[in-house]
């Protein structure tokens, strides 16, 4: 869906998204990193299990809830990437 403009980021960090490693620019939000890394959706819904992706990216839609470093229900548009961060698609409520 998205691509990064040809800019040279000052620094990058390594994150894993659903088990796959990616180098992403430092300072990116998790939602931005996930979208630019080619992932189509970030959660499945509680009611029907349908896939969903970030919708507003400004904190008002709560569609980008993901499991970040084991913690469910994090708004991926508000969290910045960290080196070694583990990012996972959230299924339903995100709890086993």
């Amino acid at each position: 869906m998205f691509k990064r403009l040809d800019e040279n980021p000052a620094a990058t960090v390594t994150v894993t998204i659903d088990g796959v490693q990616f180098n992403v620019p430092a300072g990116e939000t998790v939602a931005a990193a996930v979208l630019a890394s080619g992932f189509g959706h970030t959660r499945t819904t509680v009611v029907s299990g349908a896939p969903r992706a970030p919708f507003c990216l400004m904190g008002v839609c709560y569609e980008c809830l993901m499991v970040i470093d084991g913690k469910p229900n994090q708004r991926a548009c508000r969290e910045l990437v960290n080196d070694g961060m583990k990012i996972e698609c959230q299924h339903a409520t995100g709890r086993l």
Partner: protein
Amino acid sequence: MPACDGPTIVVKDHYQLVIIGAGPTGLSAARVAADHGVDVALLDEQPAPGGQIYRAMESIPPARAGLLGDEYQHGRKIVSSFRQCNVDYLSDTQVWSLNSKREIGLLQGDEPLMITADQVLLASGAMERPVPFPGWTLPGVMNAGAGQILFKSHGIVPNDGVVLAGSGPLLLLLAWQYMHAGVKIQALLDLTPMRNHLRALPRLPRALMARHYLAKGLVYKKDLKRAGISTLHNVSDLHATGNDHISSVSFRHRGRQRSIETELLLVHFGLIPNAHLSRAAGCEYQWDRSQQCWRPELDDWGSSSIDGILIAGDGAGIGGARTAEHAGRLSALQATYALGIIDKYERDQLSRDDRKWMHDDLHIRPFLESFFHIPRKLLSVPDDDTIVCRCEEVTAGEIRMAVADGHSDSNQVKFLTRCGMGPCQGRQCAEAVAHIVAAAGGEKVAQGGHYRGRPPVAPLTLGQLASLYPEETE
């Protein structure tokens, strides 16, 4: 934790003025109040000042800033002026509560705090009007504003073939910005109905008194046309289809049903005040027919129905970023006056330019509001199978059934259907539910009502809440 660019601020228990939101309103207000020696805290959820409109202003690479245009770069002045003033600027801070006693609950990282203020200025800005249509919940369908945030903050743009659809100045601006970044836009679907031209015509003469707005819009249009971007006007019946992701968008144009294949559809239907916190505080609201949204009841200075709580900028009613600067200054002067630091005469003298700007801006608004008036049919979600509440997956048909059963206001529909009870707390469905309820019951939207707001307006764990009262949990 995000990088901190200054010494850690020790948050005080009490401030003379707390400003919530670091967009043009909040930044300008902070500067004015601080210059008068007011003890100010500015709270904002983002890591850096600028709000949505001037996002990433301090860190953006110059080339990217150039692609975004002059209006964006105007924000540099506001942000740097703010940086020169003495306020407690609390970034990465989420406000989860505000009450009529001006007690403010906030979260810094994972740590909850309660502070109080003599005066509170809400500068929470706007959000995009959520308009449910078939397929809008599919991955690959996003707000145009979301696309713009990716561009401003991160230099991320759509792959070639993106489709833009909706109605409003932002859609045009985003298309223009993408064009400069070399993104190939497959189509721009303008859902502004042709009859809006007629509707807006009587307001044109007055709008010509603020013709710089119109001139800008015409430049964007001309540039897009010259670049060969296909723009279809008077489009209706927007529909996104796909299984787990959008694969095509279909619509009606010139009496024909058409379909375009795409993996990304960016939609926009205007802006509405971001009102969640002020509603939870209990500020009175009224329906504005021209802006098609609820606006807080305010006086000319931005004072709300609650003593000591002011609301300014787009959160008070959509006026745009430039107007927000002036509105922020006006409200800051009012707060400074209410604190007894300046007298009435000083307030009136110091605010003369800002009041003039606010007055002149009224020339253009009625024209823009009637030109970009969203058809009521679209707002009341005609297709029964369309999901209205994205969180609880409640459809328009289920809401209409609840109305048919005698539940004739938004809050009753909410209790019955769970519509608006998910994580977004109704931010994405409240407007649509009010329109559906009103249309189904043959009433005006104002009578359909709006969900009651309650704290916490941001996610908070029970542990965080309990930690505010250690003596009771020991």
